[in-house]
């Protein structure tokens, strides 16, 4: 084992191939994403919690509602009930986005990654593509399973109103959930590319996603209405809800608002990555 062969590497046996490009970087990033232990673990926990909590919410609300047959204006709609577990899912995808970048810094792997791919914009682009495509597929699968499970539970209580995929806009909301959580994951990824630190990025994202919108709503309406309407993660929610208050963006304009915000964040992160010492 400690012997060094005289011919350490057979130079002749090494084929001349074209230099690596974006596709090679994406292959590498895919390997890294799926072999990162936190990825499958976080996804498995997220799937169990999202679908489990949604099922529990569907059961409790539908059972309670059908036994008492009392309708209060404040009760959630059937679709809201079925999507009940997704607030946990949102958090999970955000954390996965953060970890996809920040784990490279916490483990000092980033130095090696940049030796293999010194073109930093290409590296960030590869990470964004691989993360969004894989998370989108997984989130869509989760969203449809979640819907069918909730739908089946509610169906057992005929007194409770139910929805189906063919109901007005329901399909959009179910597909939209996959899009929305993928975008929230990208928000985490962009934040981590800028902050390079797991804890800091998660705190920043939680504040942006959950805490600041709450504080905003406490402001006088003349302030909170316009800010709340365009606050990216709130505007993006139009895609996953059916009730549009007056005065709000449409589902797709709201999504575009969130996507544009993430694009700007990623461009800033790209600039910072190029300028800073690794």
């Amino acid at each position, binding site marked *: 084992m400690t012997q060094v062969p005289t011919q350490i590497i057979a130079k002749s046996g090494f084929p001349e191939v074209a230099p690596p490009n974006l596709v090679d970087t994406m292959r590498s990033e895919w390997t890294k994403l799926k072999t990162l232990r936190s990825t499958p673990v976080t996804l498995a926990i997220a799937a169990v919690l999202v679908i489990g909590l949604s099922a529990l919410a569907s059961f409790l609300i539908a059972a309670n509602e059908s036994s008492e047959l009392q309708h209060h204006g404040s009760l959630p709609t059937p679709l809201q009930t079925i999507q009940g577990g997704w607030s946990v899912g949102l958090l999970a995808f955000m954390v996965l986005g953060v970890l996809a970048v920040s784990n490279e810094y916490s483990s000092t792997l980033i130095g090696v990654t940049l030796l293999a*791919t010194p073109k930093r914009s290409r590296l960030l682009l590869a990470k964004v593509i691989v993360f969004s495509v894989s998370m989108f597929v997984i989130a869509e699968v989760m969203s449809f399973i979640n819907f069918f499970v909730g739908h089946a539970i509610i169906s057992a209580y005929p007194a409770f109103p139910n929805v189906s995929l063919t109901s007005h806009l329901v399909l959009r909301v179910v597909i939209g959930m996959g899009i929305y959580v993928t975008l929230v994951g990208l928000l985490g990824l962009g934040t981590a590319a800028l902050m390079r630190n797991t804890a800091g990025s998660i705190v920043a994202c939680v504040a942006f996603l959950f805490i600041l919108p709450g504080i905003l709503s406490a402001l006088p309406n003349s302030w909170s209405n316009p800010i709340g309407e365009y606050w990216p993660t709130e505007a993006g929610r139009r895609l996953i809800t059916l009730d549009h208050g007056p005065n709000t963006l449409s589902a797709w304009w709201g999504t575009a608002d969130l996507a544009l915000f993430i694009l700007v964040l990623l461009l800033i992160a790209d600039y910072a990555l190029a300028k800073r010492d690794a």
Partner: protein
Amino acid sequence: MIQVRNLTKHFGPNIAVDNLSFEVEPGRVTGFLGPNGAGKTTTLRMILGLVRPEKGTATVDGVSYQRLRAPMREVGAVLDAKAYQPGRKARDHLLALAQASRIPLKRVDEVLGFVGLSDVADRRAGNFSLGMAQRLGIAGALLGDPPVLIFDEPVNGLDPEGIVWIRTLMQGLAAQGRTVFVSSHLMSEMALTASHVIVIGRGHMIADSEVEDLIKRSSGIVVRLRTPKAEVVVPRLQTAGGKVETDSDGAIVVTGLEAAAIGDIAFQAGVPVHELSPVEASLEEVFMELTRDDVEFHGTGAGVVQ
């Protein structure tokens, strides 16, 4: 070949690398020496495109690292032994690197075998000892069969077997005609491994020379003389231009006179000579002498703090 021209970098008000220029030639092991904090790692990181120079350039075969078309096939480097995700298997770590560099994937098992990690390839790298981590880092550096190799403090924390392995490896790589550039703060290690050394302190160049020349140049002429009649010969030696000190064991240490001249003076004075031997300073002493003014932190004394 690595070429560094007028490389300069500050971190805040402190200068890390100060107008440094040198070349690292292929076919030999070149040591990169300096006390802790001398700027070795920063220089290596600038060569590898990880840190941006303020002034100057660092190139590999005339091209800056970020412009290399297939970087891992042109330069292999180990900067930090544990630069991997601890939850990832050793093979997956190398697989991702090979994919990013479009290196044939069968090469992963080749380098794993070469560094002796085949048996633990499917174990999570977080459980690796420092020696295994170093081997994994070296496997990554060798993936692309690069003609230029850079190692930052590769023997730090290794056991003797690991040190010998790395030393033999570096010399073997150089013997194949590759450029091998190795940083260390241990002169004694470089004395055994390198044939050429670049010494820096506080970011600037102190010496760039063959190891043998460095010893000769720095030690001057030092001769030990042992005689029962020191009081007779010492004034004569001083008259002849020698500097004389007395060693702890009673021997006279003469600087600035050849052994032959000292012998002649003793003979003319009729003084018996029991020992007359030229002393070669160890590389360690040379290093201490060269970098004395450039050590970042000096101790205030040898006393033990109570």
